[in-house]
């Protein structure tokens, strides 16, 4: 068991790509936790998707041994967190397991939207903060200017920021000693009843369900009978361990420590992040505060391509949700796509990642529908319903009103792109709240309907600012909207999976755009296909896909047969997977792509 006074727990936080995972590499190396030959870049990003995309998705914990100048050896528990706004829930959970934060600011870029968002979270969590300026090896690095920014924009003492390069390793030693000197050790008494916070859990094919905890009070040990306080179920601890980053088994853990245990937990439902774990025989009587539950803001339908895979999909969703409590799912049926699930996510990237993990880790082929936000509708009879699927919108005569979610967005953008960003926000029905300057960069605060943001706002923002703008948002509130449902008809039949809810003034334009997009996406068939967008029974846009006119081999004799058959084979293989809808074949990706307009 560790001496509590010599423990320092901290989360590494920053805007996306400012170098959190790379700095973690250097800290691991400096403490000698991994041999050089075991090292690779961003060693903590161990999921394939993380490595391919070069971003962190899951927070990772590592315990390091650090010998300080005072001759003592300290235990550092570091948590590397993701930077992308969709994964801010990972950040907030990590923060509540620590007493301090290591804030990184890229010295060639300065304070960005998620720098602010994350540092405010850390301040809210009463964290001590050690600030570092990273990437000082870059020619574009301007440490002095950025220190001023930290003073002015964040309100932290910029002059105390340590200049480092996570690439070359410069400044790493002073980071370690600052952490020891500035961050407080954890509180907590070993003699109290066990109180441990469930930070995360995931499924390991060899070890079963792993549960990551932060011990607050008391002691957790092998063979102990523990209890999950929210469900009341109890288990016996099979094994305990920490990540160094390799798994190292330990016999027990005391206050301030972060590590995992296994207890042959069978039900996913027992693993609620934020839950308090206590000793079953000598339970504590006060639960920890836990976390604010995360609320999914975008929803889409996920359907197995092969309807026989429905229960596999259900299984996979359960397993994934063990590891990611921030998404939700419930069964759904669609006339066009069959049985599937309506799933909720924290944002588009989150949705993309889950979809990709389902295909890669569980070998499932999926069709997904376009994302939609959650509307709040009031029916004529006074009933209020959260609407997760546009297709379920009641008839106009049953509907009193629709409310839509609005967000508060913070955007940082260099002066020269301000004009285009303002135009973009206005197009998206944005309302300006504030415009101030951080050096030559504008900091914009806008209220925006989430509906206008989910699909491609981030991409558009990046493209109108040549990649320089950064963006963060928070839910604001529901507001009354002038909204209508646009249905899509293919050869006269409504396709439920393509329905969308949109602002009335934009309905016609969007209806036209969808029809045009579908015309591109749906290949020609043996007959004409009529595409229509309608509000109620009123058609607002239409397009026609003309029939295939030529697809034949003019001459085919004895010598041509093998070649010809192989060509057909190739064409058949290259053909997109189709969904039969009435007489019409619709490519599976169309259900998602059509609404990307």
């Amino acid at each position: 068991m560790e001496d509590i006074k010599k423990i320092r727990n901290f989360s590494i936080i920053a805007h996306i790509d400012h170098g959190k995972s790379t700095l973690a590499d250097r800290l691991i190396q400096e403490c000698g936790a991994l041999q050089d030959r075991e090292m690779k870049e961003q060693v903590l990003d161990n999921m394939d998707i993380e490595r391919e995309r070069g971003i962190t998705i899951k927070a990772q914990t590592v315990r390091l041994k650090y010998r300080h100048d005072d001759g003592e050896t300290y235990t550092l528990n570091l948590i590397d967190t993701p930077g992308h706004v969709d994964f801010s829930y990972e950040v907030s959970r990590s923060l509540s397991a620590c007493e301090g934060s290591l804030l990184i600011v890229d010295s060639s870029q300065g304070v960005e939207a998620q720098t602010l968002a994350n540092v405010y979270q850390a301040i809210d969590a009463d964290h001590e903060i050690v600030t570092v300026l990273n990437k000082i090896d870059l020619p574009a690095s301007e440490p002095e200017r950025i220190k001023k920014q930290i003073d002015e924009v964040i309100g932290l003492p910029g002059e105390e920021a340590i200049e480092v390069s996570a690439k070359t390793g410069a400044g790493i030693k002073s980071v370690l000693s600052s952490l020891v000197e500035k961050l407080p050790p954890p509180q907590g008494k070993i003699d109290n009843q066990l109180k441990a916070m469930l930070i995360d859990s995931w499924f390991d094919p060899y070890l079963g369900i792993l549960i990551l905890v932060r011990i607050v009070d008391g002691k957790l040990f092998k063979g102990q009978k523990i209890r999950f306080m929210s469900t009341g179920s109890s288990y016996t601890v099979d094994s305990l361990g920490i990540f160094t980053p390799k798994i190292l088994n330990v016999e027990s853990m005391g206050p301030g420590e972060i590590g995992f245990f296994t207890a042959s937990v069978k039900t996913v439902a027992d693993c609620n992040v934020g839950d308090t774990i206590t000793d079953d025989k000598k339970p504590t009587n006060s639960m920890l505060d836990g976390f604010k539950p995360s609320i999914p803001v975008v929803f889409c339908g996920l359907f197995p391509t092969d309807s026989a895979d429905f229960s596999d999909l259900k299984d996979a969703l359960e397993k994934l949700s063990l590891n990611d409590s921030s998404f939700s799912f419930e069964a759904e049926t669609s006339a066009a796509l069959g049985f599937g699930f309506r799933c909720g996510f924290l944002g588009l990237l989150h949705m993309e990642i889950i979809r990709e993990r389902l295909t890669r880790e569980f070998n499932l082929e999926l069709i997904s529908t376009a994302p939609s936000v959650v509307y709040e509708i009031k029916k004529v009879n006074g009933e209020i319903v959260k609407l997760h699927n546009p297709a379920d919108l009641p008839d106009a005569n049953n509907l009193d009103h629709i409310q839509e979610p609005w967000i508060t967005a913070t955007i940082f953008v260099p002066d020269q792109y301000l004009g285009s960003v303002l135009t973009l926000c206005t197009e998206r029905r944005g309302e300006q709240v504030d415009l101030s300057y951080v050096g030559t960069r504008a900091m914009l605060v806008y209220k925006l309907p989430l509906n206008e943001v989910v699909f491609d706002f981030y991409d558009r923002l990046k493209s109108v600012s040549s990649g320089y703008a950064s963006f963060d948002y928070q839910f604001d509130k529901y507001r009354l909207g002038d909204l209508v449902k646009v249905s899509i008809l293919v050869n006269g039949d409504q396709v439920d999976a393509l329905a969308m809810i949109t602002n009335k003034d934009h309905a016609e334009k969007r209806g036209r755009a969808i029809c045009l997009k579908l015309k591109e996406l749906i290949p020609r068939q043996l007959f004409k296909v009529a595409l229509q967008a309608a509000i109620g029974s009123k058609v607002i846009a239409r397009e026609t896909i003309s029939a295939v006119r030529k697809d034949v081999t003019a001459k085919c004799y004895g010598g041509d047969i093998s070649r010809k058959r192989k060509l057909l084979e190739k064409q058949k293989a290259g053909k997109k997977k189709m969904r039969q809808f009435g007489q019409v074949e619709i490519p599976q990706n169309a259900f998602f792509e059509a609404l990307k307009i």
Partner: protein
Amino acid sequence: MNKLGIYIHWPYCISKCPYCDFNSHKIQNYDPNEWLSAYENQIKYFKEYLVSQNLKNIKLSSIFFGGGTPSLMPPKLVEKVLLFINKLFNFDKNIEITLESNPTNLELNKISDFKSAGVNRVSLGVQGLNDTDLKYLGRLHNASETFIVLDLMQKIINNISVDLIYALSCQNLEIWNHELQTFLKNFSIKHLSAYQLVIEKGTKFYHLFNRGELKTVSDNLYKEFYFSTKNILKDNKFDQYEISNFSKPNFFSKHNTIYWKSDNWIGIGPGAISRIWNNKKERIEFENFKKPETWLKNCLQNKINLKKILTINLDASEQEILMMGLRLNEGVDLNKLQHRTFLNNDAMLHIQKQGIINIRKNKLMINENYFNVHDYIVRKIIDNYLSS
């Protein structure tokens, strides 16, 4: 499946046409005796194979000299090849013996000799009906020479088939219609193959097309060309029996029908392919070496070599039967598709309801109004293709 045909490939031409992807080469020095021996050796080879499969009594329905330009062959060579075949095979009494020919005076002068050698049908490469089209196609003959040759040749060989290539970007639909009408009025031909121009990989046209220097007609116009040609031929008492083939009653090509009905044929000569149903009811594919010199060398040995011999797997084989059979107006005999696990019944039902395909007397056929999308339909009703 009891029909048998022999295809004999002659790979040389006066010059290479820019659209042509056949195994044809500009003519060079050759030794007719060597060619005769090589042909004979290979014919013998297949005869032995047939005997080994208990097929020695099968009657020969057709022989086809194709190319290249087999009308450039010395008539003596054709005669000796036919004599040799005659020694080894039983000819059906109505055997069809076709020779592909260019429509020039050179051929006209040889036609009687070909006839006495045994040729009873000529497939004449007319290709274009006016000088502009012929030039566009890179042909060496002009229209008036072609028409004179055709006229005179018809007096010697009654059964003449004409090949045409149309739907060229230099053509105008009305003018083409008119020219075709006039042509059919002036010449009482028995058979016509009308191909819409295909830009084949590896041809000169292919490269020009990729560089944007050659245009093709739009899909829409392509379709109009096809159906108006089809209608004109119908009006002139031709029966369409295949996507691109039309004949006067009883003058359909027996040889090519072997391909479409997936019967047996032996392919002799460079690059030629054979397909034979063996005694285990498996379909065997034989492929010859493509380069004329390579083929020749390998067939002049005592024990001849082929490039490839393989058994086509059952699925692939039935898929071929379907794909080829659906090219015929009469459709494909479903009795030949015993296995048919690859058929997508849902898709078939869909398009059958719409009248795009029909099933009558156990034959599956494409409605001829949809011949312009034959490949699309085949892809749609074949669930998955398996490579052989």
